[in-house]
């Protein structure tokens, strides 16, 4: 089966900056794919390479088996939902949505009908006559989505689609995007710096850093079995454990990671616990986050709210299930 999007050793350099550096990537048709990373990690450049706004310095890109280098954005069957939505202020909502069909020469009645349908799909029926400036942020986002989907793209690209929305709206949109993607069966590729968003929405996640992909896998893979210290730290703020520490529990001299929720806090010394001191507690609602100091090693633990907690500064003993200690690829 051909990949929806395939990168072979793709690089994009801006002067001496390697925005994207020898990236290999295969996105399966119909999947919800997330590109996750901090700002400047190359994820957005990758998206722009797929859209055609950037051309690779080297390497090859194909979209559903067709070579994409040198193909301008307007000849790709790929559409983008922009971070700032990029709606056309001089057109009303219906004409915005119908724009792609208009430039392809679809007749007025036909394209308006298609635009109405797309607006219903994003649950904004009857909003066609309004101006983009009369809509709320969430509504503009839906219009941008409808404007892309009306062209029936093979791949839909979303650049930080939920970045500008407030928390409540973001959660609703996450679910909606996910069910929309399932219903339409279109390959969605979205860029985000929010690991929670990537884990909850995507079928697979690529974690970017410094223009390279650090790891590609299912959200569970990425979260439970990070391959590098960067992934462990960036996705879910895992505790990164130095090789000397890891050797005591696993016998192998390698970097390890331990999820904060895997750490149990005890008061008395028992078994093979790690002696530590509670530095601070941070109440998060459903859980409480503890900062601990284990002989110079800073660790974080997350415990359910309501658990009995020691006082700050008190000595505690940390225990964890050795199976939860994950060994990373990086040797010590």
């Amino acid at each position, binding site marked *: 089966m051909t990949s929806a999007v395939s990168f072979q050793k793709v690089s994009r350099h801006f002067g001496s900056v390697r925005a994207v550096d020898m990236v290999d990537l295969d996105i399966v048709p119909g999947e919800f794919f997330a590109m996750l990373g901090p700002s400047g990690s190359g994820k957005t450049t990758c998206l722009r390479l797929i859209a055609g706004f950037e051309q690779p310095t080297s390497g090859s890109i194909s979209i559903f088996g067709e070579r994409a280098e040198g193909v301008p954005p307007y000849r790709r069957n790929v559409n983008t939902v922009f971070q700032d939505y990029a709606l*056309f202020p001089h057109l009303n909502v219906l004409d915005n949505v119908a724009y792609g069909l208009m430039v392809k020469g679809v007749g007025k009645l036909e394209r308006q009908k298609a635009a109405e349908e797309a607006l219903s799909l994003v649950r904004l029926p009857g909003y066609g006559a309004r101006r983009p400036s009369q809509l709320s942020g969430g509504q503009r986002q839906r219009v941008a989505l409808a404007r892309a989907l009306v062209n029936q793209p093979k791949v839909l690209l979303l650049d930080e689609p939920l970045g500008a929305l407030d928390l409540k709206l973001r959660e609703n949109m996450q679910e909606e995007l996910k069910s929309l993607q399932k219903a339409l069966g279109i390959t969605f590729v979205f860029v985000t710096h929010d690991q929670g968003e990537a884990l909850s929405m995507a079928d697979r996640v690529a974690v970017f850093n410094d223009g390279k992909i650090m790891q590609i896998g299912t959200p569970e893979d990425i979260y439970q079995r990070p391959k590098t210290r960067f992934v462990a730290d960036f996705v879910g703020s895992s505790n990164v454990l130095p090789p000397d520490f890891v050797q005591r529990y696993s016998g192998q001299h390698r970097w390890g990671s331990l999820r904060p929720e895997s750490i149990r806090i005890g008061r008395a010394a028992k078994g093979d616990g790690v002696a530590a001191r509670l530095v601070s507690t941070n109440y998060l609602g459903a859980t409480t986050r503890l900062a601990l100091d284990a002989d110079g090693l800073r660790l974080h633990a997350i415990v359910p709210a309501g658990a009995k907690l020691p006082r700050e500064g008190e000595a505690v003993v940390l225990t964890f299930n050795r199976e939860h200690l994950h060994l990373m690829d990086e040797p010590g």
Partner: protein
Amino acid sequence: MRSDGSPSAPLGLKVAAACGLLFLHLPIFLIFVYAFTTEEKSFAWPPPGLTMQWFAVTWNRPDVWEALSLSVRVAAISTLVALVLGTLCAAAVSRTRFFGRETISLLVILPIALPGIITGIALRSAFSLAEIPFSFWTIVLGHATFCVVVVYNNAVARFRRTSGSMIEASMDLGADGFQTFRHVVLPNIATALLAGGMLAFALSFDEVIVTTFTAGQQQTLPIWMLEELIRPRQRPVTNVVAMVVVLVTLLPILVAYYLTRDGDQIAGSGK
């Protein structure tokens, strides 16, 4: 700060402001009045009598029509040249980064900051060095130097306010460069171009200094008026023409003002 006191200004300030405004506008009012005077040799105050005859006289003077037609043609063509060049330059400067961008931006604006006499002398010596005979086109070139600036300034401001991703969005949705320009770029800068163009037209229409240096035997309307003041013959005709000039230049400037003000509101509400 007197935020709690009465908003009314003291009487002295009001009188001073009124005097200032009178000083600015009374002479213009006098020009209008003398267009109706019955005295043709000198401007005597008060006018000995009022008449409409000068309008008919002006209408029948072929030299007025020649000068007016030349001025309109020069202004129209200079504005057209300025619209094309100014927009292209504004697009380049605001859309891309390249070596020397700031310098180009400064060089484009410079002609309006330079005294007209410098521009005029420079152009005149350049034309004679290149052995270009003075003609309609040398006047157009001279006027285009400052008309470009006005269009450029308007277009650059509008380009800065329009989001760059709009052009990408248009390409993304299948529009090629020409379609994007026609359906997205042009509608978004149209009012700025209209405003810039009208301002350029008005500037060109009443330009004297650069024209003196770049015109040969031809007379644009302002030059004609200058000549006419020296030769006292049917003097009120000049005043009638002056009224026309005021109207022709004032209306575009007013329209330009309202157009750009509107544009600001649209851009502001778009967030």
